[in-house]
């Protein structure tokens, strides 16, 4: 935690973080057709966590504490790599995009492009990188690494 707690940050943290996270998801998925994408979305979500961090709250995703941001990085990278390699299974070139059109009741036709999963991987990875940096650099430098709200589990 840096300095004293601030009421403004506390309130901003409580109300803004969920909104920012939703926006980040939206930006990620609309990226294929309008400005946005996994990288920008991930950075926006990262900003949400920075806000959370500056407000002095333990880093959390939903109800669970962030213990190992590296796992999120790994998951993101794995998703992107799998999306890259998947076309090989169907005899296509690496990274070849598949386009599916799905009829969803009430919503209408939704177009899904396989590269969205690639972008989702980028999104996760960027979030993981921001969290990893916050966990690593945000901990009180004099603290023992096994204590404090930003405790990192040995990975």
């Amino acid at each position, binding site marked *: 935690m840096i300095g004293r707690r601030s009421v403004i940050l506390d309130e901003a943290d409580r109300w803004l973080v969920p909104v920012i996270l939703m926006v980040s998801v939206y930006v990620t998925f609309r990226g294929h057709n309008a400005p946005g994408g996994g990288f920008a979305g991930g950075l926006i979500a990262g900003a949400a966590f920075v806000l959370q961090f500056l407000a002095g709250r333990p880093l959390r995703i939903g109800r669970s504490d962030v213990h190992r941001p590296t796992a999120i*990085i790994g998951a993101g990278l794995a998703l992107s790599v799998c999306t890259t390699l998947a076309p090989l299974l169907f005899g296509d070139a690496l990274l070849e995009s598949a386009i599916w059109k799905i009829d969803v009741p009430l919503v209408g036709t939704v177009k899904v492009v396989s590269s969205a999963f690639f972008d989702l991987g980028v999104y996760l990875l960027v979030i993981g990188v921001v969290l*990893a940096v916050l966990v690593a650099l945000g901990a009180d430098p004099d603290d023992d690494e096994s204590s404090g709200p930003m405790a990192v589990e040995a990975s």
Partner: protein
Amino acid sequence: MTSIILVHAALAALALTALRSRPVAAAWLGCALLAATAIAVAVMGIGADDVPVERWTWVGELGFSISFRLDGFAVMMVLLVAVLGAFVLWYSIDYFEHDATFARFVGLFIAFAGAMTGLVLSDDLFSMFVFWELTSVCSFLLIGLNDRSAQARASALRALLVTSAGGLSLLGGVALLQSSVGTSSFAGLAAADTTGTVARAAAILVLVGAFTKSAQFPFHFWLPGAMAAPTPVSAYLHSATMVKAGIVLMARTSPIFAGDPVWRWMVVVCGGTTMLLGGARALRQTDAKLLLAHSTVSQLGFLTILVGLGVPGALYAGVAHLVAHAVFKAALFLGVGAVDHATGTRDIRRLSGLGRQMPVVAVSMGLAAASMAGLIPLFGFATKEKALAVLLHPDGAAVGIVALVFVVLGAVLSTAYSVRLFVGLFGTKPDRSGIETAHVHHAPTAALVVPVAVIGGASLVAGLAASTVGGWLDAPAAAQAAAATGYLALWPGVNTALAVSLTVVAVGAVVGWRMPVEPGEHRSWPITGERAYQFLLDGLLDGSRRITSVTQSGSLIAYLGVIVSVVAVVLGVGVLGDPGAGFVDRVLADSAVQRAGAVLGVVWAIAVVAARHRFVSALLLGGVGFSCAVIFAAFGAPDLALTQVMVETLTIVVFLLVLRQMPRRFEADSVWAPKLVRVAISVAVGVSVSLFAVMVSGARTAPSVGETYAQLSEPEAGGRNIVNVILVDFRGFDTLGEITVLAIAALGVTNLVRMARRQRTRAGGGA
């Protein structure tokens, strides 16, 4: 054949994971697998009309494939590997007892057996190389099995470095052969013309590879060091099987390449030197296991001469002696292990009268030692007799006579160290003043004795049935060269070879008997392979350390100075090559917003340099970034602007997190990078980057790919945001690379911080 190897790999993986807590069960499964392998190979290979062949294309463009061929020689080798392996694995169950490393041993042992099986089945040099390296890795892990012992680790590393250097040499040979002759398969090489200079050089590289693996002079020194491994490992890898890989390679290639006199002389000189060196060293050892290690070196030299000469008769003798050596040496190693296990020592100075206490082991090892010494009626006699008979009828070449001299002298030594080993271990020594005799603590169990007895007894049985066994060896030898058939005999009749043989045995026995138990001071040669290795390794480490201390000074200013100066120089040279380029018809800005953004950016940048506090400086730097975002947005690049804003925001936060651990103000001038120098570097890089940017933006000659991307974006990738489509589809590979770098950087930061914190904690705790 492929399936056999895959089952080995699967069982090895199983033993290292799921069966980790039940190593004995894993060991029994391993024994069963090895026995099944032996049976399967015997059924498939012996007397088959068509030689079974399997081939899997690997890198078709380069002509590389993994191919197996179960010819007579392969059958013989697989049988040796599997049968000896099964016995050694059984033996190891009781040898290790409750040792914690046993689980790892079992897994690695089975993995090794699979790799070795693949090696001897290989039908081309490339496949052989792959399995060759696998055996090196297994050997490394097995020598270093006791990873808490510094000596074991050093020995393992030495073995790995020497054998993998040889592996590189082999790979070089394979590559040269592939490119010059166009094939690496043994049959293909035999049919092709290999008399060209490149092919001959390749053959020598292959031979060097074989020398390292089979511990030939001057690479012999790693093998005695490998005795740091547990005895079953020594018995199996470093005596009976893996060190034979070089012999196998020579057996496969010598009929093709041995016409080259360089090859022949190398084989005879290196093999002969190894034979004498190993024999002489063996005679000086007091540790029975080291004695065996040096004797193995010596015997490998003998095999190298026989197999490498490329003479059909010698090849037959070599194949026969390979079997003889594998059998008697495995028994001897296991026997020494049993003695060690029972008495707690293998030092022949501390053992006396053990023959009466461990009669079965003594008799079995006696048979094996007699076979090594070449006594009638053991199998070793028949094979050595055959070798002498072949070499006594040279084809008139000097190389054959030299080989004969080496072999005779070497045989004297091998009789001598056989006598020394047996008498040393089991004899009753008269003068025992001042030496504490080791006693049998606990009698060895069946698993420690039966393998020794069976394998030791095999030397006698094979010797008595020498002519039958000799007939079996026709197929293995003929697999290399059609003319390499022969016969073995228990009693060859009175001839020159027999006379030589008897003289050798008599002289050797006297030498071995008269050799004092306590050898005198050992004088080492000034130049040895071992010293050369140590010199090279030390030099490499020392040199790396020096270069590192110069290039990695740890000064941030120095690193940044070097990086930035290089940028300035490289770009500056480019700009100076075409001064003023790109300034023609240049529109500086399209709109007032762009102009304002640019001016703002410049103002922020000047403020960054002027600031005295680090925090302020970092915040102002963010201002420069936001100004850029304004310009991007005004240029119609919303994606870029959005990303820029987010990156800038996060960067500022990260900056602040780091800066709070540093002094608040910038320090005064550093001693060796005064302000003037830093200003000069900064101005140079600023000017060169700016001019270069202008020059590059005006240098387009080909049409932009942007148009193509814009057209393809929707139909090909289903997206209307071209920037995003480029990122995730058209140039997705780049993105993949970038996010990988990002992930690595994050891991690096995490671990560096953790390391620094741990060091601080430790330092704080110590104070």
